[in-house]
């Protein structure tokens, strides 16, 4: 059970934070189809940051700080770096959509094509292969926090084993950030102004709100969160490796956002659900649900009749199938920001 919860969180958290990234852009009136591309780019920047720091021996230079705590700081620096460059990448979308009033779907698609191309181009030049890995060691060895480090090795209860053992600090930082960003969006003046630009920019403008600035802030925050989410995804699920691909996670986040009806709390729930499915797909063979030593899902996949359906292929397509079905059932109720995707034109009424 602990394993199941931990794995679900690992998949759900990047989804959640990237879906929130989508909310910030759409609430300000810009469709951010480029989430996938920004994630890919952010993952690359974060991995490159860690790779270069290891290569130039930052921790060998300062041996007195080479403990697990400073590693966490190092991880957060990587997240900040990937977030900042993700925001810079998202500027391309903002420039096209806000200044040039371009088609947002097309420019988002262009960024989704640009990110893997540029990442693979540089990865091949830097690493001379198709993927950029850590310079030495693996992600778990460098960044994972174990309960012994927190002085909890004697404790062996459910809470400690689930939430304070073998985790990445990034997961909790993201949860915290998710809460903070949701509060900003709903409980502050800035959030209200941002949302008004996605609903009725003309009215917002008439009240003295600078629509362009608000939309740029929306896109930049969106880029920051998505870029950071990309790095967190790479760190926690693929051993800090960048290969110009996040396996459709950005698009899944988009579905989570719509499923969550552009509201943070619903998004958190949807992300956990999708995370559970992703976790089933990745680890169905080693999940022990009720702790009796029987790996039920694995047994089922070997079953002569049930195994025909309940096999890894089925679990892998489940998130997409569910999201399509959910979209089909909730489409009547879903309420997108009214002005999303429409370039702001002052003269329009």
């Amino acid at each position, binding site marked *: 059970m602990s394993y199941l919860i931990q794995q679900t969180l690992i998949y759900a958290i990047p989804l959640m934070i990237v879906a929130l990234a989508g909310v910030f852009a759409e609430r300000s009136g810009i469709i951010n189809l480029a989430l996938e591309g920004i994630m890919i780019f952010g993952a690359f920047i974060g991995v490159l940051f860690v790779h270069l720091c290891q290569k130039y021996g930052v921790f060998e230079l300062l041996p007195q700080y080479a403990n697990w705590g400073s590693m966490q700081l190092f991880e957060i620096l990587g997240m900040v770096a990937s977030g900042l460059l993700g925001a810079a990448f998202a500027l391309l979308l903002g420039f096209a959509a806000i200044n040039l009033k371009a088609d947002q779907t097309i420019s988002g698609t262009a960024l989704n094509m640009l990110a893997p191309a540029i990442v693979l181009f540089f990865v091949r*030049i830097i690493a001379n292969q198709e993927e950029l890995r850590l310079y030495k060691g693996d992600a778990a060895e460098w960044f994972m926090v174990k309960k012994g480090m927190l002085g909890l090795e004697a404790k062996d209860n459910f809470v400690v084993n689930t939430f304070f053992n073998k985790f990445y600090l990034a997961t909790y930082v993201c949860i915290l950030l998710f809460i903070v960003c949701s509060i900003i969006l709903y409980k502050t003046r800035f959030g209200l102004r941002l949302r008004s630009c996605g609903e009725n920019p003309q009215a917002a403008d008439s009240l003295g709100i600078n629509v362009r600035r608000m939309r740029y802030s929306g896109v930049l925050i969106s880029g920051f969160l998505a870029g950071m989410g990309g790095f967190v995804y790479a760190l926690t699920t693929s051993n800090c490796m960048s290969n110009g691909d996040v*396996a459709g996670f950005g698009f899944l986040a988009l579905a989570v956002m719509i499923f969550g009806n552009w509201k943070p709390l619903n998004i958190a729930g949807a992300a956990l659900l999708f995370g559970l499915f992703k976790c089933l797909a990745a680890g169905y063979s080693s999940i022990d649900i009720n702790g009796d030593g029987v790996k039920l899902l694995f047994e089922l996949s070997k079953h002569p009749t049930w195994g025909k359906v309940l096999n890894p292929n089925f679990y892998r397509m489940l998130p997409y199938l569910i999201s399509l079905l959910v979209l*089909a059932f909730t489409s009547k109720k879903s309420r997108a920001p009214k002005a999303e995707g429409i370039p702001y034109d002052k003269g329009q009424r």
Partner: protein
Amino acid sequence: MKTRSFFNKDGTKSVLSTLISILIGLIAGALIILIVGLVDDKLGLKEAWKGIRLIFFGLFSKGQQAGRLVFGFNSTNIGDMLFRAVPIIMTGLSVSLAYKTGLFNIGASGQYLAGTTAALFIALKMNTAVVAPWIVWILAFFGGMLAGAFWGAIPGMLKAFLNINEVLACIMTNWLAANIVTWVFEGSGLQCTEGTKTQVIWKTSHNGVATAKMGLDKLFPESQQVDGGIIVVILIAILIYILLTKTTLGFELKACGANRHSARYAGIKDKRSIVLSMAIAGALAGAGAALYYLSGSTEFHWQTYLSLPGEGFTGIAVALLGACNPIANIFTGMFLSTLDVAGSKLSFFTEYNEYITDVIIAVIVYLSAFSLLIKTWLTKKFKKSDDGFRKIPDVAYTSKSGQGDKLPNAAAAGKEGNA
């Protein structure tokens, strides 16, 4: 006066803005090559110069002699270019047709996979000792087309009946297709058992099925790949052009794309039209896949669940670069496959790699998102140089709306772009 009417034509402006986008894209690629060459000490300026020349003239590369690149007519390259253009022109047509009818078909990848699966199954499972190979080829081609149509119709139906955004539905059906295809081939027994290549499906020539060469192998004798597929593609492009511009059905589809509700008011079945245009778009993508894999010289990597085929996304570039005109798509498809050939030369002869061509394509798509802006700019440019007193209203218009999109010419262009 004559030059003015030529430059004021909408078609001319579209072509010019496309050429400008291409040029900017190529220059961006060249700049990246130059900067990387200067920064990275294992590359250097000499290597960068080689790379830049290959980006622009890779199609005419004849290899290397004593470390120097030689350029000239190369029939292998041109034949390969034509062959690689086949699937992307088809996915381009798919995206174009959908775009003209008001839908953004980002699902060409999934439709392409559906087409691949059906075509390969028919071509490899049918006994060519009983049924003549050419009949099998035709069956497989139409099978691929039908599978693509079915896969395209799903997001179409979701859009028509449940009002789900087709972009999202397409993204989901893409990844569904990627998983289903892996599942289907896993137990199919069609995996290649030759040597160590267990990751691929048999070529269709294993079962004696292959596209006819139609004399193109005589034209380009050294190319292993070129076949009649490109001729079929050109015919289909012309058919689609006729469908869209000369038939009632085409008009209905376009009208429905322009405004679904007023089309219904005019007596057009809007739901049927939406499903139909997605199905035709899917059929085109599926046919592209069938033509590519039925050539008999291509291998299909069946474990697709982690990545989608790039043809679907290149199709978006082909379509947008050609302003979604089916005839223009033939040329833009060939241009992008030229870049593809140039990319493989680049990674073969220099320390750079082929991904730079994807960067160039992405830059071009990015630019085509605001091709309207370039067109408007062209309009102003030619008006100013041709007609002095027109200058004043132009400036007045542009200062008001910021973009000049109220100009009559640009407005017409805008309608066409959105339709």
